[in-house]
């Protein structure tokens, strides 16, 4: 529990960590979704390719968009990009830095989906079983074109009655899976090498610009958070003053209407101040009715004149 709490606090410590945390969660979610997803190839000549490639490419797009949506920095970057210049100049390198870091984080979950799909192999087997050269496989070599298309399309379905004990089906399946896994591992290797080179070569170019861009992007993020917090604090104080003002004005109105005597502060208990001269069922009802029918104006400057 302690370890969990430490990890949780670490991730909350700054917004970059939070983004990394969300990124990691999305990557885990993408693997989980793939394992939960019940892949069932249609085993029909034209549908196979559409289904297989669809499963391989449509969820990554959705995951990429999710990664952009869940990342708070993307909003900050857009606001900074679209704001009017005003008194503060816009620095394009900061915006570029933010954009590239957002894109990098958003790309992780889709890439993981594609790699897991390729390493598993089912998608590629489904998509390309009809495109295999039938001459290479004994069972499909000497049949007519239409029939061979139909048979090859059924290769991904192990339980189909035609394919149940067909050794050529297993051969095609193994062949395609081998290609799929080779592709998966190659992509993984290329991406890791690219990431490695980017990390190592980046300090050789424009280190100063990078440091500045990172600092100012962090600053913009923090500034926006603090602005929101200050607005919250301000609205709380505003509401407090407004309500006090309302109770005071109600008290004055009661005094005008009911000739009851003003209580001077001395010698009264704390309760009197809280009651604010509203000591009657009708007065309370009137106060609540006034609150509903005529909310006070949003102007607390008069309280300072009292």
């Amino acid at each position, binding site marked *: 529990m302690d370890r969990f709490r430490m990890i949780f606090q670490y991730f909350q410590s700054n917004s970059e960590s939070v983004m990394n945390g969300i990124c990691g969660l999305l990557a885990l979610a993408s693997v989980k979704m793939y394992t939960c997803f019940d892949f*069932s190839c249609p085993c029909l000549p034209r549908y196979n390719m559409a289904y297989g490639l669809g499963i391989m490419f449509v969820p990554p797009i959705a995951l990429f968009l999710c990664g952009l949506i869940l990342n708070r920095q993307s909003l900050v970057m857009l606001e900074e990009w679209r704001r009017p210049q005003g008194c503060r100049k816009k620095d394009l390198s900061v915006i570029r830095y933010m954009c590239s870091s957002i894109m990098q984080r958003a790309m992780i979950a889709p890439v993981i989906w594609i790699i897991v799909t390729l390493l598993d192999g089912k998608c590629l087997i489904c998509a390309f079983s009809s495109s295999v050269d039938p001459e290479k496989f004994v069972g499909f070599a000497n049949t007519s074109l239409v029939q061979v298309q139909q048979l090859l399309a059924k290769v991904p379905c192990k339980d189909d009655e035609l394919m149940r004990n067909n050794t050529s089906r297993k051969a095609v399946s193994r062949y395609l899976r081998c290609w799929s896994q080779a592709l998966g591992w190659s992509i993984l290797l290329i991406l890791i090498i690219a990431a490695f080179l980017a990390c190592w070569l980046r300090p050789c170019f424009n280190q100063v610009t990078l440091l500045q861009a990172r600092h100012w992007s962090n600053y913009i993020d923090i500034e926006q958070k603090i602005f929101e917090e200050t607005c*919250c604090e301000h609205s709380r104080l505003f*509401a407090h003053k407004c309500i006090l003002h309302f109770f005071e004005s109600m008290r004055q109105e009661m005094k005008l209407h009911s000739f009851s005597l003003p209580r001077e502060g001395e010698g009264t208990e704390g309760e009197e101040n809280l009651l604010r001269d509203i000591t*009657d069922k009708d007065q309370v009802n009137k106060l609540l009715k006034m609150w509903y029918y005529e909310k006070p104006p*949003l102007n607390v400057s008069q309280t300072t004149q009292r």
Partner: protein
Amino acid sequence: MDKFRMIFQFLQSNQESFMNGICGIMALASAQIYSAFDFNCPCLPHYNLAYGLGILLVPPFILFLLGFVLNNNVSMLAEEWRRPQGQRGKDPAVLRYMFCSMAQRAMIAPAVWVSVTLLDGKCITCAFCTSVPVETLGNISHPGLSQGEMKRVLARIPCKEIYDGQELIANEVAVRYLRCISQALGWCFVLMMTTLAFLVRSLRPCFTQAAFLKSRYWSHYIDIERKLFDETCAEHARSFAKVCIQQFFEGMSTDLASARCHPPRKAPADVGEAAEKLLGITDQGTMNTALKSWHRCKPPLHLHPPALPSGNGWAGEEQPPPHPPVPRREMAAYYSRV
């Protein structure tokens, strides 16, 4: 337990996080309800479509309404919408902002239900099994089947145990076909929803940022103001009740004392705190009378201003005297109807 408490505290730290938390819980609940639900296709020609589409569309509607009900800002929105204008103008942009943010959060659980249903495939298989293209997938030339008969046979596709049309169209072929269509629809739906969410979120800073900041501030303000008003009223009610009850007990003790021809007893200065708290009621009979009085005849909701402390036991009247002496102890006028 500790982990839950921490997560709970994090989510409660501000209102928006709390709403996001409820949203996430509802989404997980909707996925869990779907997996716990025992789907039972009726396998009859016209019932299939009704059942399948019903399971696809009715629970999301319920989840959407539930999302609004569980959102405690709904009453705030309704109140702000219906209140009379009074001295404070109404801003339709604020109302729109509140409604949009509530609707967006309420849409997540239904979207999760629809996606999970489509990706699983059972609903679409059940609803559209009678529309399977038998010409391409099976043998339409299978003899002796009228339209109605064929529909009846096809309707049994989801129920493998009673399916008897294996020569017409193989069960696995039809189920695979329908499930493929269903999953394609599901992923398209997911893509469409995420694209919509992305557009809504990213177009806002490009066009209406200033108006957005204003609406957000004032909707937040309305929420805080309502909470503070409730707190202030609760404080007021507490003080009101305290003074009312205090006046009741004092009135009781004064009343009973004057009924027995004793002057009202002033607590001597050196008596301890406990004796003061007894409020003049010091025997069983008096206490019983006080309790009976409280039940039969609660005091009016009217805290009287204090009367002059004079020696003749005048217990105060409706109209207070015109010249207030400087410090006075508050005494209630209690009219016993016992």
